[in-house]
């Protein structure tokens, strides 16, 4: 059975929003960009908008932004499918959390991956998104279901 690779990075106070595109490789080809509840025309602005929500709820989290990378391996072979998959990834969070996402094709490879930057604080009620093992496993199972792996 094909497995989706899921990597989770938790950024604290020293998070530099401008480094987002440098993870993992600066030379990756950008396939698509999307967002929910934040501006994608201005990277500083989207970060500020996430901070505004955190300040509103006066939530003191250890993470300013949660960065997830979903690697599709051999499951995704073209830009269109990669784009659809990235939207499915984002769908998991958007009911409660602001998300900025971009999909890349790794340099020198035909493999695709999606970066998801998620505000750990809910815009609905300020609840903090869990990033424990169980939460990550639930997300991975969701991806396997919606991307259609048997």
């Amino acid at each position, binding site marked *: 059975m094909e497995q989706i690779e899921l990597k989770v990075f938790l950024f604290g106070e020293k998070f530099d929003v401008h480094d987002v595109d440098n993870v993992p490789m600066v030379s990756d080809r950008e396939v698509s960009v999307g*967002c*929910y*509840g*934040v*501006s*994608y*025309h*201005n990277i500083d*602005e989207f970060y*500020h*908008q996430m901070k*505004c*929500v955190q*300040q*509103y*709820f*006066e*939530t*003191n989290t250890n993470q300013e932004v949660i960065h997830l990378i979903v690697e599709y391996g051999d499951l995704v072979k073209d830009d269109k499918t990669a784009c659809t998959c990235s939207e499915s990834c984002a769908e998991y969070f958007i009911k409660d959390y*602001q998300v900025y996402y971009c999909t890349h094709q790794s340099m020198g490879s035909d493999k695709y991956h999606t970066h998801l930057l998620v505000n750990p*604080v809910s*815009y*609905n*009620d*300020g*609840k*903090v998104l869990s990033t424990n093992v169980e939460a990550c496993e639930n997300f991975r199972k969701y991806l396997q279901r919606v991307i259609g792996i048997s």
Partner: protein
Amino acid sequence: MMKKKFEKLESIRSIRLSDEDYNNFKEIAKKEGTTLSAFLRDCARHRNNKLDPCLLVHMQNVANIAMELIQRYEPQNAKTAEKLESEMKELWNKLN
């Protein structure tokens, strides 16, 4: 609604309210997964702010769609998109 991590809730005060209000507030707090005290504190803190994050998130989504349409179909009107972005920025700044 979240409690500040290091917030000290040392002061205990009684307030006067009708049974109906009490039951309504308690019900709302329960639905939101919080306590009556936390619910009332949150209402008081944000009483003068007609904006809330949920509303702004939806407004931002609408603005994003509008800006995308401008970029795609009327790129000559880039200034309109810039104005829209600037208006949204002002609204986000008013949140806190």
